[in-house]
């Protein structure tokens, strides 16, 4: 038994610290207005309605577009096609390959060709239907592996290979010779849909001064503003993007969606334009989780020491790059796991196809390879006759070892600590698979670590600001958006702790490119950590600044003052000047402290490698109905080592929400294509978990960090997905002795397995 660890918060302890979100009351009374709730411009004029004409073909050349009939339709105010774009016609992150409106070619169903703004949505749609487009159909590229063949039809100039990776170390051949147990298999993960309940949409309006205001859900307002300004050849700063609050994103609204089209319509018509995708349009055009095919071969010696690991990945990125390259990078990095491999070889390729568009999604490339890796590890453990937990524990890298790419990483002992916690858990200790006739039960264990922030060379820098508002509120201004992760609470907790004021003194100013500096994207589980570092490193400076400003009116020396709760206090703690009065005394000369954080990156010169990792281990319990083949997740215990918990509510919510999404990926969620078309276009054909599918959750926070850690909290935004998918897969494997090779594990896979003669797997 380990001594009880003061840094471990049990589920009950976490629950006891949960408090209502600052925005809960408004959300519960439906008083929060999402971008898609706006039907009028700020001045109250009712907005025009936009509609997009998307491609009905997955791959075709555009020969001609005739919009004359649409333009002539009464009630139509603007019709736009690619030639109407005055500036940059394409956008993208690393690779600028996505047309705002297609001019010469379409590469997936729904690819936007034209858009209309009209008095009503019905007229806008009717006008779209009047636009004549002449196409020459091209062969549809469906299979990522075939897409990479020399004779494949290509989507983009330069071919279908978007990105490839390769890394490794050690003596592979010798290690393979030395291995007693070798496991080799091929795994597949499906295309998952984000399923945010608010589809892409919002309103764009002229600001009356030659610029535009964009109210559209997004994760990075400053970048979106830049893309739109470039498109319209407007000076930066003339486009203001307000990207919050968001009715769910999970990565799906990280890159721009249809804001540029809406902006172009508003620009052309000179009116506010409202545009929102219907659910089927959103399914067609929105990004998805990358489907992966993964081959792995791994081996260990007779005592269970890992010797070598080989992984080969092929992923389907669909029509455009968006975050694809970074996702393949993450997949490769996380294919290694927190395990010590003396010899390693990982390689991967990412192919363009006409199967929609794949992009950023919580879990980001890592979850796919983590599922396969955890299967490999469990099977090796089984081959050695060692229990999965002990096997993992004995094969962990040392806390101060280099990272999965061989890079220098921040020392971290999370993987060992989460395993230690679960080793004592009753669910693990009493884990025998149970067979109750019709139902079989099993408990699976998985372990993952995952990176924070973007890899080396990525957009890791951030700026945030602390300012005093005219009403005396201390504003924490950042470009991050609130998507449900409880960022407002995080700002309050960290602000109060690190600036010495009361939570009620603070106001979070989020997600508005005109009111907050560019913090980078609200992605990669980075917002909390960046606030922690920024406010932590500059909080003292801010307090000094306030004291200096308060000194003259108070007639004291700054060092006799302190910035505290409610205002400036004397050395004895007595309140001398409230923040409101201080602000009033300063008039227009209100202070703002701009904080620039350099990218926190590994010093190693390895592209895309990460510096910071968090870790999770989980136990999943499933009940499989052998009649229907349906596996039900009944219980899930997650131990998360992510450093100090800042917002218990946010932490719990991110872990549970992420875990359910990962369980969905493992059990029901998949969006197949045929001929480049999605086979489901709404939530009736695509099955996201309901309350009836939710397990009993137990979330345990393992808080402590290694001595001298300067990084602080690791993000909780994604790792719930990362851990849940492999844990559920492990549970099904344990319940049925089934070689789970693909996600989701559908009833037909389970029934096929049960039908199989003993030992044929």
């Amino acid at each position, binding site marked *: 038994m380990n001594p009880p660890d003061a840094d471990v918060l049990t589920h009950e302890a976490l629950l006891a610290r949960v408090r*209502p*979100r600052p925005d809960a009351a408004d*959300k*519960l*009374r439906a008083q929060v207005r999402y971008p898609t*709730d706006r039907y009028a411009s700020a001045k109250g004029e009712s907005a025009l309605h936009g509609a997009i004409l998307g491609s009905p073909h997955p791959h075709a050349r555009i020969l001609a577009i005739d919009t004359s009939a649409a333009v002539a339709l009464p009630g139509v105010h603007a019709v736009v096609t690619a030639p109407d774009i005055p500036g940059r016609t394409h956008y993208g992150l690393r690779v600028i390959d996505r047309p705002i409106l297609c001019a010469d070619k379409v590469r997936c169903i729904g690819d936007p060709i034209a858009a209309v703004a009209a008095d009503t949505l019905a007229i806008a749609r009717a006008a779209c239907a009047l636009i004549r487009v002449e196409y020459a159909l091209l062969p549809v590229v469906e299979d990522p592996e075939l897409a990479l063949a020399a004779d494949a039809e290509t989507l983009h100039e330069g071919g279908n290979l978007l990105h490839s990776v390769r890394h490794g170390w050690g003596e592979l051949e010798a290690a393979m010779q030395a291995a007693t147990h070798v496991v080799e298999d091929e795994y597949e993960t499906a295309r998952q849909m984000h399923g945010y309940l608010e589809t892409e949409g919002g309103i764009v309006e002229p600001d009356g001064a030659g610029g535009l205001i964009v109210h559209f859900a997004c994760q990075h307002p400053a970048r979106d503003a830049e893309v739109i300004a470039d498109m319209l050849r407007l000076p930066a700063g003339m486009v203001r993007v307000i990207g919050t609050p968001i*009715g769910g994103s999970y990565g799906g609204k990280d890159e721009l969606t249809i804001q540029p089209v809406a902006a172009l319509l508003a620009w052309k018509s000179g009116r506010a334009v409202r545009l929102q995708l219907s659910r089927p349009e959103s399914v067609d055009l929105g990004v998805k989780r990358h489907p992966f095919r993964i081959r792995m071969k791994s081996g260990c010696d007779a005592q269970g020491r890992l010797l070598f690991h080989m992984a080969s990945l092929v992923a389907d990125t669909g029509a455009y790059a968006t975050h694809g390259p970074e996702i393949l990078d993450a997949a490769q990095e996380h294919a290694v796991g927190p395990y010590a491999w003396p010899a390693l070889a990982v390689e991967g390729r990412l192919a363009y196809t006409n199967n929609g568009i794949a992009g950023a999604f919580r879990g980001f490339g890592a979850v796919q390879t983590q599922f396969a890796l955890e299967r490999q590890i469990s099977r090796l453990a089984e081959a050695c006759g060692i229990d999965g937990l002990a096997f993992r524990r004995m094969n962990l890298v040392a806390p101060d070892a280099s990272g999965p790419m061989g890079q220098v990483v921040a020392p971290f002992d999370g993987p060992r600590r989460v395993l230690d916690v679960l080793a004592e858990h009753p669910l693990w200790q009493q884990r025998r698979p149970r067979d109750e006739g019709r139902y079989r039960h099993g408990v699976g264990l998985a372990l993952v670590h995952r990176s924070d922030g973007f890899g080396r060379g990525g957009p890791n820098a951030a700026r945030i600001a602390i300012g005093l508002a005219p009403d005396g509120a201390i504003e924490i201004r950042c470009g991050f958006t609130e998507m449900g992760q409880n960022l407002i609470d995080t700002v309050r907790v960290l602000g109060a702790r690190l600036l010495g004021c009361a939570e009620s003194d603070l106001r979070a100013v989020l997600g508005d490119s005109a009111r907050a500096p560019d913090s980078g994207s609200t992605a990669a589980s980075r917002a909390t950590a960046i606030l922690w570092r920024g406010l932590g490193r500059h909080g003292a400076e801010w307090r000094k600044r306030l004291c200096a400003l308060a000194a003259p009116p108070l007639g004291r020396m700054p060092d006799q003052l302190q910035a505290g709760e409610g205002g400036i206090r004397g050395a004895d703690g007595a309140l001398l000047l409230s923040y409101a009065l201080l602000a009033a005394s300063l008039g227009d000369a209100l202070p703002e402290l701009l904080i620039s954080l350099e990218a926190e990156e590994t010093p190693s010169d390895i592209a895309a490698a990460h510096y910071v990792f968090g870790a999770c281990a989980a136990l999943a319990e499933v009940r499989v109905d052998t009649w229907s083949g349906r596996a039900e997740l009944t219980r899930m215990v997650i131990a998360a080592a992510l450093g100090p918990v800042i917002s218990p509510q946010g932490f719990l919510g991110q872990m549970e929400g992420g875990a359910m999404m990962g369980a969905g990926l493992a059990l029901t969620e998949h969006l197949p294509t045929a001929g480049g078309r999605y086979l489901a276009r709404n939530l*009736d054909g695509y099955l996201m*978990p309901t309350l009836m599918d939710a397990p009993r959750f137990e979330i345990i926070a393992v808080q402590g960090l290694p001595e001298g850690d300067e990084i602080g909290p690791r993000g909780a935004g994604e790792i719930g997905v990362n851990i849940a998918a492999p844990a559920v897969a492990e549970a099904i494997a344990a319940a049925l002795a089934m070689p789970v090779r693909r996600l989701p594990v559908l009833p037909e896979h389970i029934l096929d397995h049960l039908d199989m003669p003993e030992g044929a797997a």
Partner: protein
Amino acid sequence: MMRIEFELNGEPRVLETPAERRLLAILREDFGLTGAKPGCEVGRCGACMVWLDDLPTNACLVMAWQLDGRSVTTVEAIAADPRSESVRAALAECGGLQCGYCTPGLVVTMTHLADCSPRPDAACARAQLAGNLCRCTGYGGIQRAVERLFPTADAGD
């Protein structure tokens, strides 16, 4: 176009509108009541939930012609009704919401369940709430709110 008389949040209303327009669109576009949210528009997600003659109903599935002579209560009215207070408190305190987009629909369904007599037990409430999807919370907080609000015949597992 057809003429429809109905009651909206306790007030009589008259509407001239195409017969096949959806109640969800009417609420949002004609009355500025945006508490009911579009999510799927096929009756699957529950984000658009209202009471139609006091029963939870997907506003995306109700057409204008079905409204005549009926009464519609939206979340704006329900959230102001003391009967929803325990539901809102439970969801807030248990962490039953995140982005909040599903939340109005949940308040509408749960307030109805909490107001039923007898109150359904937790298992029954869970089953009824399967029509309200939430993509953010993983249902952890919603489940805790359900357990707090409804007698737990199915406590344990």
